Structure formats: C-alpha cells, structure tokens
C-alpha cells in the first residue's frame, strides 16, 4: 500500500508502536553480523522453540546491534509497563529460563546487562516503563557512559527488516517535513546550519557539497552513498546498515530531494552479505510503500535507488574511482577537478556521501540544524561512531560527541587493557591514519586535533595497541595494505609504496641499516605530495607517525636486530625467548629435558642466565604472558623448570660438570681488565659474561656479601640464602673476582678505576628509599622498607610491636608485610590506588592475604600520629578517589576530605626506591631528576667514555630479570668496544635437538610447585614454593608447543611477479 499523505504515515506509526510496545512480551535478538558470529541464530531458534513449547504469545524478532560487541549475543526483552532489559552473552540454553520467567509475568534477571526506561529515538520518544532498580540503567555501564546515540539511535532496538517499526519511532517524518518545506534551499540551509561534515574521513561540509549539486544544471543528477567501508578495523557502516537501513535511505531521499537528484546508488562492500540483504529488503519495502519511485508521499518527487556491490578494491572509496567502478571500469581515480558535483557518474553531476553522513540527515530535519550543532565542538559538530577494537576489554561500536578525549575512550569506555598489559598507542583512521602514542591520550577526538598529531579521524576505526604490538610492524602492515590496494596508475603510489614496503620489510627482517630509514623518510613526503588520489596521499601517515612517536623501535630493529614486542618473526626465536629479558632459549632447554639431556639443558640455562635458581624463584616471568599454550589452556611454567634444573645441579654432581663445561667454553684470555661496581644481579651478570669472554673482571661490592637486593632485600622465604650462595659459587668458580666493603665515593673513586681498568660497569642499584614527605616520617618506629628488609636479612630484625601498617603497593611493600607477619605482627597494607593497580606480583599479594595481611585501598598517608614520648601510635590516612586517567592508563588518585587513623605500633614506608645521587655527581656522570644514570640505549655507555652503567641505577627500581638483562647487554657492548667485534655469540653455544612442533598439545595440565600452607609458613622464613620434581618438570617441558619451530613454507607473496603467463 502506497503512503500518500500524513494520515497514512501516522496510521503506520500506530501499528509500528504496537509492535514495539507489544501487549505481551516482546523479545528482540541482536542479529547483526557480530551477534550472529557469536551464535545469535541459535539463540533465536532456541527462543522460538521455547515459546512454541510453552505456547506463550510473545513477539519474537530480530533487532540490530546495540554496539557492545564484546558481550554478544545481546537479547532485549520488554514486558508491558516495565523497562526494556538487555541481556548479554545469551546462550541457547538460556532460552527456556527466559521464556519461563516471561510466562510467569516476571522480568528475568539472570544475565541482565542493563535496563532502558525511556528512549529518545530523536525522531520520536518511547517510554517503556519504570522499575527494576536492581538492573543497572544502560548509561550507568562504563561502556555506555558518555556515549550519545544519534546515528545509532535505533540500532539494536528496532527490527531492521520492518518498515513499520522505523516509522513507529518517527522515521520518514523527516522526509515528509522536507517535502513540505517551502523550498529546497531551506533544507540545505538547515544542513549547513547543523555543521555536519562528511563522515567518510575528509570532513567536507555536507551542506556545501549539497548546494554544489543543487546548483548544477543537468537533465540527470546522481546521489551516491559510499558504503564501500574498506578500512580494515572499521565496521560501523556495516552495523548502521544492518541495524537500521531505513535511516540511510531516508537521508538519501532528503538529500536527493534537496539537490534535485533522481537516481540513487548505494555502493556497498560485497564482504557484507547481511548488510546487502537488509538493504535490499528495505529498498523493496520502500518501493512498495511508495517511498521510492514516482510520486513519493503523494508529491511530485521521484527517486529511484539501486544497490551495487563492490568487488574488493579499497581505492573505490575514493570518489572518482567509485565513479569509474560504477561505470564498469577498473577503479582507477581521475584527477580532480572536475569534481563529481560538476561531472561525475556518466559525466553527470553527482554527490557522494558516506553512510554515516546520510544517517545523520533525518535527525537534522527532525530536530533542526541548530540542535545538531550544539553537540560536539565548534568546528566538529555532532557525534561520530567509532569501532573500538584491539587490546581493550570492551570492544564494540561507540558513538561519542566529537571532542571526547582519547583516554576516556580507551580507558573509560574501553576499560583499558584486558590483561593488564601496557597500552602503547591507538591507531585511528585505518591505512590513511596514524598511530597516536598513549602520551597524547589527552587529545580530544575531532578532525583538527587528530590531524595535528599526524593521524586522521577517517571512518572511525580505532585499534588499541599494547606492548605486544610492534610499531614498525604496524607501519609495514598498513603499507603492505595500501601497496596491495594501490591502483597502479600513478608512479609515486605504485612504485613508491613498493619501495617503501621493501624497506620496511628489510627493517622487520633485521636486514636494514640506518640509511634505509633515511630513504624511507625521504620517500614519505614525496608520496604524500605527489600521489594522484587520497590513497597515495595518506598512505605515508602510518609510517610518518610511527617514525615520529616510536623512533626507538625502528632503532631497536636496526641496531640490536631485535623486536621487543615479539612480532617480527625473524628477530626472535619464540615469544617466550623474546619476552624473557635475558632471552633465555626456553624452547631449547625444555626440549633438551624432554630428550633426557639434563646436562646440556643445564649448560644452556647457565649460558643464558647466570642466576637460574634465584630467577627461577623470583622472576616476574614475562615469558608466560606471551606463551601460546595459554590459548589452549595455561602458559607453560618455564621459570620453575629452570629452577628445577638449577636446584638439581646443586644437589648433585651436575654442578661440577656444568662448571667444567662453562670453563671449557670460556674464550681465551684477552688481557683486558674490567671493573664492575656493585655485586647485585646486574653487576654479577655483566661480570659473568665479561669473564666468559676472556676478560679479567673485578667486582667491587659495598657490603660484606654479594647478591645485592637478592641478598639484602628479598626475604628468605622467597629466596633462601643458601640458593644464592650456590649460584655465587658457580660464578666464582669460572673466575669472577669479588672484593667486598668497597664503596664508590668513599675510598673507591671512579677516576682510579678508569685509570686502572680498560672499562668500568656501574651497577650500584637503588638503595635510597623515597620519602613520602609526611610529618613524623622520621620517628623511630617508622621504617623504610629497604632498611627494614636489610635488617631482617642481616638477622637483626627490628622490634616492630604488634600492629604494623605498610604503606605502598609494590613488591617491597608486600615483602615487608609478609616479613612483618613472620616476625609476629598483624599487618595492614594501605595503598592509594586500587588492587588492580598494584605493581606487586599478584601471587605475592594473594599469599600475603592468605597469611593474614589486611589490604586497604584508596588511602594515602597523611601524617604519623605520635604520643607525647614521640612513639608511633597510629597513622592518619586520607581517603582518595579515582580521578582522571594518567599516562599509564590508571586513574590518578585524588584526595578527598575524609580522614581516618589506623592505630599501630610501627609503620613501614614502601613508596619507592631511587639511586644515591652523590657518587655519580662527583664522578661527573650525567643523571636524571630521579637520580637514575643516563646511558645510550644500546651500549649502556654513560657520558663518560669507557664507563657503562646498568641495572636499577639506570632503569630505576625494576625486577631481577630486567636488571640482569642490562648487565648482559652491557657486557656484549663493552666487549665489542674492547675487542672491535661482536663476540657474544661465540660463548652462547648452540645445541642441536629435535625440531618438531607437536600437532596437538601434549603434557596435560600445567604443573606448579607445591606451596606450603599459610598456617605452616607464616611464623618462619622457610621457603614457601617447594619446586617441581623430575616428573613434573618433564611433564611441563612436554607442554611446550615449540613456537620456535617456524613453518617451512613462505607465508609472504613473492616480491615480484614471474614471467607473463
């Protein structure tokens, strides 16, 4: 039936509203592609069956996607008089429960995500009902907080295949209004007033574009919708069409009427079959209802619309290429001018706008341009839909007013990293956009601000990247994309990108030198300025932004031939080896254990890590974070396997044989003398490798025993002293000399060292506790964690009293707390942020709690409460609340006016450690504000020639394996400088073993060390983790998937094509 007048439209509105506010229950299943990909079809069928079985008279239909893709399938349920409730992660087996509850007249509660009481569809409002306060309101969820749904106003709430429902919420009334305006000029005026800009990326003012077409004189004008969403990583247009095709059609009709166009074309990606199908249905429904064709809504207006499926060419997003494609040619762009508004499809005036641009139009008509312009910023009005994907917890489609800061999107809506990793950058705008580093997450998202950073808004793709993403690889990835999508017409793009890709591959393969980066830097501006179309002109952006913000990663690939992120395959053995700061050849020793070659395994372990027993206990095991076995069940327990091997050695003759092998592997005497200052893990590591390389090494240690923090700060229940002694014995055996009670600055001077030795390595650590700066901090019962732990390690535990408060959230805080418990105190740890922000190892925190430690969060120390004799009676804390996100993605604690006092007898302050500045200053070594020493990132050389530095002294307080890795890297660099060549690989003996990756996971579940029970451990310093045994260590080794065994075939297309066939 054709709609000819307003009454008919109103009648349909009533019918539609009766569907939306059904007299019985209404169930809508989110059936966008992502919902279906998550199993929405099965849910729909299960609901249908359950309804039939129960004989319940309910409306069941598909709806679009509500945007929260991470928790699909979404199902919304309406019961008359009650709010609409959205359920998440619904499974077919939930159908029966849902239907049973509805049959009983109750709103189900299980899996309820949020409720909607009333909804402003902008073209109309609907009140569902009130109540159900236990279910959060939709905009109370972090994912939706701050979102403003203009484009997505109907998505996920109405049936996209039902024209009546679209009309029910005010659809096509905007068209009616437009058709009844006194002149088409006024429609264009309204669009101009709205300040709407093209949502395809370039941001050209829509109203201006329309008036160009309106003024063009021709017998035929075309109105084209660009739905060729080609940006990999962006899918908002797909969802907009799948969820609400009519808003696009209505927008196009209004635009066509305003400009005098009679032919409409939607150029849609063939990769989106569901969008094609929904749009086809919508077009058919419009034809039937007289909304397309002749005499639309009873007026003179005639408009036809046709769907054309693209065939996979990104460049067709460029308007002249799209025109060529529509004319049945290869999609090669033409120089502009002439612009399509002058001469477009078949030489006729043509207007091309992106899907999302069109979707805004009905709202502008319904609410007025002025209303629209109020949303967003002055130059960037309205909202933008973003697809927030990559390394965030909450992935999905979000619609935000323009001007929203990036950090609110990444950390607020996105919820930050899903697994606690460091978020490094966000990529906006796809292949034409750029990578914005976390440092700039304060930036508001609008056209201009993003452009200033070298990125673009583009179609709204936002891909969050974390520490596991290599930015050189990202640049290579995007350039490979644009390279493969280049039409080949102009030389800068065709050959320039080919050369750029070759250079980037060279860098990623570890075969580049600095001149390659220079070539790249020279090519990029040329390609940008000289290319014919937008594809080539913007293709350099990913390279330019990564060069601008992540230059260090390019340097790393070239100078050290490593890819820390573990992406560039040629530059690492396996993900575990790569994440290990010491680059232990983990798959190797696991395989050797499998082959029952314990001695080989032990030698390999020692060569890679001279403190395998200690690190086997206390390392933060970054290896496990990247273990691919975790995709199957759990990561391989690599740390405890090398601990097992080392422990085995100490208990048997193996130790002697390993020592002998190490001695045999030592390079001949070089007669070079090297001084190492500090016998902590970093200094000892450097000393080990320098000794193995044939140098004569002397270690100067301030204290009376070696080990540094391992000896004087780590409690014995984590690292028994005996274990450390055994490790030191191995080092001494191979020839590391240590002299004690030698303090730099008092007796030992750097000048004399540089005179006497060929090279010096400084690794004096961070032994100064940071002051919290509160009154009473100097009182006798207030301890600094480092001092306290050292006293205990020296067997002089200070008297603490009964109640102890530990301030801080790092490992020193937790170590102090657990030590204090063992000394008989009851302990409270107060931390100014939240649990998830604690830098301490999670297992340690858990074990501390098991032992009785109490944790309080969001509290910062204010003042120490003292009695008249100057003794501690308590600590006053100030409640904090979480404020804005900082550069680390954590919310900054902000003080409140709420104070409280914890009574206690002693306080341990563990708020951070830093190096002692004076010895460095006196020696003329350049230091930073936080007293750490400035060194070259690769050679670890300080500003004083021949003097290198490493460990915590350089990095600030870190962890054992990280600090050792600086010693290892510095040893390599020092040797290279001393000997004129890189000789490290000569001592890192290679082993041959079987190289076969298991086709199916082996070894069963993860094996872990037995742990002594809290009751047995909390009153003594005996070791808590008992270690693996032969059988479990072998089983664990078998669990390795051998990611180091690379596939034989070439996974990359050949660089050039062969002979003409």
């Amino acid at each position, binding site marked *: 039936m054709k709609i000819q007048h307003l009454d008919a439209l109103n009648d349909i509105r009533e019918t539609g509203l009766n569907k939306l506010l059904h007299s019985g229950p209404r169930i809508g299943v989110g059936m966008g592609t992502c919902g279906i990909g998550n199993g929405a079809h099965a849910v729909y069928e299960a609901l249908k069956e359950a309804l039939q079985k129960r004989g319940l008279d309910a409306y069941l239909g598909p709806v679009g996607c509500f945007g929260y893709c991470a928790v699909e399938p979404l199902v919304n349920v309406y019961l008359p008089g009650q709010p609409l409730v959205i359920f998440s992660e619904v499974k077919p087996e939930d159908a029966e429960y849902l239907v049973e509850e509805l049959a009983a007249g109750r709103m189900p509660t299980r899996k309820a995500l949020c409720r909607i009481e009333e909804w402003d569809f902008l073209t109309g409002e609907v009140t569902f009902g009130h109540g159900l306060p236990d279910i959060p309101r939709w905009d109370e969820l972090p994912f939706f907080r701050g979102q403003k749904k203009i484009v997505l106003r109907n998505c996920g709430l109405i049936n996209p295949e039902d024209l009546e429902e679209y009309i029910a919420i005010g659809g096509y009334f905007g068209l009616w209004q437009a058709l009844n305006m006194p002149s088409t000029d006024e429609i264009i005026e309204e669009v101009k007033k709205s300040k709407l800009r093209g949502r395809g990326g370039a941001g050209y003012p829509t109203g201006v574009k329309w008036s160009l077409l309106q003024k063009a004189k021709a017998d035929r004008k075309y109105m084209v919708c660009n739905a060729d969403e080609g940006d990999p990583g962006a899918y908002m247009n797909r969802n907009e069409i799948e969820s609400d095709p009519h808003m696009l059609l209505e927008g196009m009709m209004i635009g066509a009427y305003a400009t005098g166009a009679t032919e409409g074309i939607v150029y849609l990606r063939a990769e989106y079959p569901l969008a094609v199908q929904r749009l086809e249905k919508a077009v058919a429904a419009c034809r039937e209802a007289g909304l397309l064709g002749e005499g639309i809504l009873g007026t003179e207006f005639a408009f036809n619309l046709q769907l054309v499926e693209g065939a996979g060419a990104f460049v067709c997003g460029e308007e002249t290429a799209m025109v060529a494609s529509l004319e049945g040619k290869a999609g090669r762009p033409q120089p502009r001018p002439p612009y399509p508004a002058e001469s477009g499809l078949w030489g006729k005036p043509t207007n091309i706008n992106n899907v999302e641009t069109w979707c805004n139009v009905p709202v502008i008509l319904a609410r007025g341009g002025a209303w629209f312009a109020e949303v967003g910023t002055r130059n960037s009005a309205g909202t933008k839909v973003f697809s927030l994907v990559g390394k965030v917890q909450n992935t999905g489609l979000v619609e935000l007013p323009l001007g929203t800061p990036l950090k609110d999107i990444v950390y607020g809506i996105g919820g930050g990293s899903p697994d606690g990793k460091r978020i490094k950058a966000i990529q906006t705008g796809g292949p034409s956009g750029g990578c914005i580093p976390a440092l700039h997450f304060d930036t508001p998202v609008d056209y201009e601000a993003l452009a200033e950073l070298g990125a673009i808004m583009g179609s709204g793709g936002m891909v969050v990247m974390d520490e596991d993403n290599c930015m050189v690889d990202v640049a290579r990835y995007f350039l490979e994309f644009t390279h493969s999508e280049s039409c*080949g017409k102009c030389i800068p793009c065709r*050959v320039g990108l080919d050369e750029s890709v070759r250079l980037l591959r060279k860098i990623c393969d570890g075969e580049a030198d600095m001149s390659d980066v220079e070539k790249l830097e020279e090519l990029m501006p040329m390609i940008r300025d*000289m290319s014919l179309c937008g594809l080539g002109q913007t293709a350099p952006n990913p390279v330019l932004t990564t060069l601008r913000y992540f230059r260090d990663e390019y340097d790393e690939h070239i100078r050290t031939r490593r890819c820390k992120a573990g992406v560039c395959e040629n530059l690492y053995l396996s993900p575990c080896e790569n994440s290990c700061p010491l680059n232990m050849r983990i798959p190797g020793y696991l395989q050797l254990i499998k082959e029952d070659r314990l001695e080989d395994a032990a030698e390999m372990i020692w060569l890679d890590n001279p403190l395998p027993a200690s690190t086997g206990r206390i390392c933060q095991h970054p290896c496990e974070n990247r273990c691919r076995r975790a995709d199957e069940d759990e990561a391989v327990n690599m740390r405890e396997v090398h601990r097992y091997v080392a422990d085995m050695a100490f208990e048997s003759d193996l130790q002697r044989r390993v020592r002998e092998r190490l001695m045999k592997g030592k390079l001949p005497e070089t007669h070079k003398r090297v001084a190492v200052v500090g016998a902590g893990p970093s200094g000892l590591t450097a000393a080990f490798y320098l000794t193995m390389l044939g140098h004569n090494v002397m270690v100067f240690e301030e204290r009376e025993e070696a080990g540094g923090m391992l000896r004087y700060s780590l409690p014995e229940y984590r690292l028994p002293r005996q274990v450390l002694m055994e490790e030191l014995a191995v080092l001494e055996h191979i020839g590391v000399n240590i002299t004690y009670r030698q303090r730099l600055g008092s007796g030992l001077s750097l000048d004399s060292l540089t005179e006497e030795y060929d090279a010096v390595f400084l690794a004096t650590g961070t032994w100064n506790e940071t002051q919290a700066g509160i009154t009473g901090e100097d009182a006798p019962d207030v301890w600094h964690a480092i001092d306290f732990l050292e006293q205990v390690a020296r067997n002089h535990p200070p008297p603490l009293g009964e109640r102890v408060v530990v301030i801080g959230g790092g490992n020193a805080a937790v170590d102090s707390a657990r030590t204090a418990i063992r000394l008989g105190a009851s302990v409270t740890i107060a931390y100014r942020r939240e649990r998830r922000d604690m830098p301490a190892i999670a297992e340690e925190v858990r074990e501390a709690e098991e032992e009785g430690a109490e944790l309080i969060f969001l509290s910062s120390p204010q003042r120490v409460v003292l009695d008249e004799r100057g003794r501690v009676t308590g600590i006053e804390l100030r409640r904090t609340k979480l404020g804005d996100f900082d550069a680390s993605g954590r919310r900054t604690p902000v003080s409140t006016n709420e104070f409280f006092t914890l009574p206690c007898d002693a306080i341990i302050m563990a708020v951070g450690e830093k190096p002692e500045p004076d010895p460095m200053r006196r020696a003329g070594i350049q230091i930073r504000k936080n007293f750490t020493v400035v060194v070259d990132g690769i050679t670890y050389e300080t500003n004083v020639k021949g003097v290198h530095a490493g460990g915590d002294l350089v990095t600030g307080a870190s962890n054992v394996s990280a600090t050792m890795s600086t010693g290892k890297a510095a040893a390599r660099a020092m040797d290279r400088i001393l000997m004129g060549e890189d000789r490290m690989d000569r001592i890192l003996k290679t082993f041959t073993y079987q190289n076969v990756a298991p086709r199916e996971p082996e070894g069963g579940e993860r094996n872990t060390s037995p742990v002594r029970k809290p009751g047995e451990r909390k009153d003594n310093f005996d070791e808590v983790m008992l270690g693996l045994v032969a059988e479990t260590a072998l089983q664990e080794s078998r669990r390795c998937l051998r990611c180091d065994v690379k596939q034989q075939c070439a996974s990359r297309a050949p660089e050039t094509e062969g002979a003409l066939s």
Partner: protein
Amino acid sequence: MKESIKLTINEQALTAKPGQTILDVAWANDIDIPRLCYLKGLSGVGACRLCMVEVRGVPRLLAACVARVTDGMEVITDSPKLKSYRKMVLELLLAERNHICAFCVASGNCELQDLAQSLGVTHVRYPYRFPNFKVDASHDRFVHDPNRCVLCTRCLRTCEEIEGARTWNVRGRGIHSVMITDLNQPWGESPTCTTCGKCVQACPTGALVEKGRATGEMTRTGNLLPKLTSMRESGR
C-alpha cells in the same frame, strides 16, 4: 567568459586562453615542464606526476597536464622540492622494470632516457626489480616488451581515442599492473588490433617497437603531435 587570462609561470608574466592547461601555456612560452604520460592529442590522465607544479595559495601540488589556468595564478615549475621529487619519481620508475639502455632498440629515441638526462638522474638509489616479463613478439610487425613499459597508458589511449580499436588495457593493479592486449592474449592473435601501429608511435620507451630493429635503431616519426592530430581529424 573572459577572453584572456593573466598568470605568471616562474615569475614570468603570461597570458593564456580560458580552458588551457598549465602545460599548454608553458609549452606555448617555451617553459619546459617534464612529462611522460602526457601526449598532445590524447586525454590527460595525470598519472606520471612528473609535471607537478606549485601554485601559490593552493596547498597541494597540481598536475600541469590537467590543471586549467585561472586568472592571477602564480605557478612555479622548478622549485628545489619539485626537482627532488621528480628525481625520486624517475628513479623509482627506472628501478621498477628493466631500463638498461645498452640493450634497448629505442635507445637514443627514448623519452625516459631524455628525462633522466634533463633531470640529472645519474644513478638510481633503489634496487632494480628486473621483473622478467615474457616479451610478446607474436605480432607480425610489432613487439611488446613489458620489461620496458612505464605504464603511461599512451598506447591504451591512442588505441581507444584515436584508432577506436580498444585493444589495449591494464591487467591487475598496483605494482602488478601490466599492459595487455584483449583477454591477455598474444598480440598477434588479437581479434581487435588493426595493426595501425599508432600505439608503437605513441610509446615513449622501448616497450612497443617495430620488429627487426637493432639496439638504438627504433626511431619514431619525427613530430608525433601533428601526425596524431591529423589522424584524428581524418579518421574516426
């Protein structure tokens, strides 16, 4: 419309007719702008990007072969930036396929060679790709050697716009683009080719040559421009 347009090219005051391109005007005034895909008498495609020029007040560079002159325009054709960009473009082009002149029949009569000389490209900093395409010598009179091709599409345009045979087109895209005849079949078997030879005359390099020529022997008909124009006027 105004009868004449006033503009400057490299600060030289000039007059032009409406509808003329920057290249037309430069040419008429003996100002040399490098070009490769452009051929008078054929539609402009702006593909080689060698004729890019700076125009004051325009944030982007413009292709002189297609950009029309406007009144008051101030054009710069030889800034240091343009020179360095053009050199890079030419170097890339030379590295793309096989442009070793010593073995080329068109040597001495090659626009690419001339350009390299006039732009001062003495060595190429990028590695040569040498893609090793098969030479198509199936035609009685002509040879198509894709290894020498610069993808300027002059052959395509000549064949389509002047001869009307539409034998030539481009296969594939990006770096994999190759000129083809008909359904990517040997030229000699082409059902559409009229053997008129205009494409061979239009080719700026040794990609399309007459058979039986030795190195350096392939000459083109003196001034192609009047010939093509007369062909167009007399022909289709």
